[in-house]
C-alpha cells in the first residue's frame, strides 16, 4: 500500500533522533483565567471580578491587532482537547519536547501580572503564576524549569518574590520584559537585580511588555512588522540603560539573558557605546570600564528569532564577537515565529560549538547538571 490517508497532517513522520537540546524560550498558556484562582487569595479573585486589571498600557488582554497567526501562535499548535496554543502539557510533550529531544525547557509565561498599575494586584498575580508553573508544568515534567515572574514595577515586592523562590529547583531565572515604565537600568528595578544576584539566578529580559511606552522610540507604528523589529530597538535601550546606569558595575555577578529580540545588533551597539563612552565618560564615572566589557561578561542571548543573513559568514562573524559560549537555543514555542531546531543553524559549525549552542551553554548558565 503506497497511499496513507490522514485526518490531518499532524501525525507527520517521526523526526530522526537528534542530539538533546535545551529550549530556552517556551511560552506556557492558561486555558482560562480561572486556572489561576486556586493560587489567588479570595481578596484578589474578587478584585479581578469587580475591578479587572488596569495596565499601564491599553489592550493588554486582547492584542491590539491579531499577531500574524491566531494568538500569535503556530496554527498547528492548538491542543486536541481545546484551549489556546501552549495550554496543554501533554500536547507540548508530543509536539515539542519529545520529537526534538528537549532535555531542558525554560518556561517564560507572558500575560502575567507584569506592567499592572495596582502593584499589590501585580505581585499577587505574579506569585499565583509562579505557583501555577510548578503545579501545572515543572512538577509534572522534570525537563521543564520555570522563570520567576515578578511584579516588575515595584522593585521591593519583586525582590521579595525572588527571595521566596530562591533555592527552589523548579525555578532557573527571573523574568522581566523589555518594555517597562522606565528603562531597565533605573533604580526602581535595582532590588530585583540585587535579589537575583544573591539567589544566583540570571535575569531574563523577554521582548514585549506593558509599560505603556510605544515599542519604537519614534512613537506608535502602523504595522505589526514594525513592532516585530521594534523589539530589538527596545532591547537595545534596555541594555544601554543597564550598562550606563551602572547595574553591571553595582552587581558584578548578575547575569542577564536577552530573550527574543535577536543578537545581530549586539556588536554594533557595543561599539557605539564604547566610542561614545570614551568621550563622555565623565558623565557616567560609575561606568568604570568600556561598556562592551560588561556586555561580553554579563550578557547571554537566546537565539530565536535566529538571525538569518544571506551569507552565513556574516552570521558567524557576529557570533564570533558575541561568543559561541553566549548563545542559548530557543524555539519560542508555540509562537508563530518558532525556530525549528534542525533547520536554524547553517552548516560549518564545529561539534563543540554546536553542542554549546544547542545545550551546553544553557545547562551551564541555568545550573542544570
Amino acid at each position, binding site marked *: 500500500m*503506497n*497511499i*496513507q490517508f*490522514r485526518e*490531518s497532517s499532524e501525525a507527520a513522520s517521526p523526526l530522526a533522533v537528534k542530539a538533546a537540546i535545551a529550549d530556552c524560550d517556551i511560552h506556557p498558556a492558561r486555558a482560562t483565567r480561572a486556572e489561576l484562582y486556586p493560587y489567588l487569595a479570595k481578596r484578589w479573585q474578587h478584585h479581578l471580578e469587580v475591578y479587572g486589571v488596569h495596565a499601564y498600557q491599553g489592550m493588554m488582554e486582547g492584542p491590539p491587532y491579531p499577531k500574524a497567526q491566531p494568538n500569535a501562535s503556530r496554527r*498547528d499548535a492548538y491542543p486536541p482537547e481545546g484551549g489556546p496554543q501552549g495550554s496543554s502539557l501533554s500536547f507540548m510533550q508530543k509536539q515539542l519536547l519529545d520529537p526534538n529531544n528537549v532535555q531542558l525547557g525554560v518556561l517564560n509565561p507572558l500575560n502575567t501580572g507584569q506592567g499592572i498599575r495596582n502593584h499589590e494586584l501585580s505581585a499577587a498575580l505574579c506569585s499565583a503564576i509562579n505557583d501555577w508553573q510548578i503545579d501545572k508544568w515543572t512538577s509534572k515534567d522534570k525537563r521543564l524549569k520555570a522563570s520567576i515572574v515578578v511584579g516588575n514595577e515595584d522593585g521591593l515586592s519583586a525582590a521579595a518574590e525572588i527571595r521566596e523562590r530562591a533555592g527552589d529547583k523548579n525555578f532557573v531565572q527571573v523574568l522581566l520584559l523589555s518594555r517597562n515604565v522606565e528603562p531597565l537600568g533605573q533604580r526602581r528595578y535595582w532590588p530585583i537585580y540585587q535579589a537575583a544576584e544573591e539567589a544566583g539566578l540570571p535575569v531574563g529580559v523577554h521582548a514585549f511588555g506593558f509599560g505603556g511606552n510605544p515599542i519604537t522610540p519614534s512613537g506608535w507604528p502602523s504595522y505589526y512588522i514594525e513592532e516585530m523589529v521594534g523589539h530589538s530597538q527596545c532591547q537595545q535601550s534596555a541594555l544601554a540603560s543597564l550598562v550606563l546606569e551602572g547595574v553591571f558595575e553595582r552587581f558584578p555577578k548578575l547575569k542577564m539573558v536577552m530573550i527574543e529580540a535577536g543578537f545581530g545588533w549586539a556588536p554594533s551597539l557595543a561599539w557605539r557605546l564604547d566610542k561614545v563612552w570614551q568621550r563622555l565618560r565623565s558623565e557616567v564615572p560609575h561606568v568604570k570600564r568600556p561598556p562592551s566589557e560588561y556586555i561580553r561578561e554579563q550578557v547571554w542571548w537566546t537565539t530565536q528569532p535566529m538571525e538569518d543573513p544571506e551569507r552565513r559568514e556574516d552570521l558567524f562573524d557576529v557570533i564570533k564577537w558575541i561568543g559561541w559560549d553566549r548563545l542559548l537555543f530557543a524555539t519560542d514555542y508555540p509562537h*508563530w*515565529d518558532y525556530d*525549528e531546531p534542525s*533547520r536554524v543553524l547553517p552548516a560549518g559549525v564545529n561539534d563543540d560549538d554546536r553542542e554549546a549552542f544547542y545545550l551546553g551553554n544553557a545547562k551551564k548558565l541555568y545550573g542544570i547538571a
Partner: protein
Amino acid sequence: MARHVIAAVDEFPPGTRKFLEIDGRPIAIFNIKGEYFGLMNRCPHQGAALCEGPLIGLAQSKDPGEIEYTKLGEIIRCPWHGWEFDIRTGQSYCDPRRFRVKAYPAHVEPGASVVKGPYVAETIAVKVESDYVVVEL
C-alpha cells in the same frame, strides 16, 4: 509519472482538503470550487506542515495606499512563519526565484478509466459509475 486515485468526487466537496502520504511523501490535495490542486505538505522554509495553513488571497500594491487583493482562496499561508505560496503552481511570494513548493497536478477521472489504470488505488474501492480525484507524481 504514476497516477494515484485519491477519493471519489462525492467524498471530496469544495472547500475541503485531504492529507495523504504517497511513497513516503506528505501531500495535500485541495478542492477549490470544484478544481483540484496537489501540493507537497512540507514548507521549504523550516519544514512545517504547510498545507494546514489558511487559504487567503494575494495582497499586492503598486503604490503605497493602493492595495489589490486577488486570487482569493488560491494562496496558502504557512502555519508557522506565514510564507505565502500559490497553490496552482507552488510559487512562493517572498522569494519566487529561490523558494517554491512542489505542486502535483490533480484532476477528476471517470471511474471507467480509473478501473483500467495505470492507476494505483489500493486504499479505496473504485466503482466504474463514479468519478474520482486523481493525482500525478
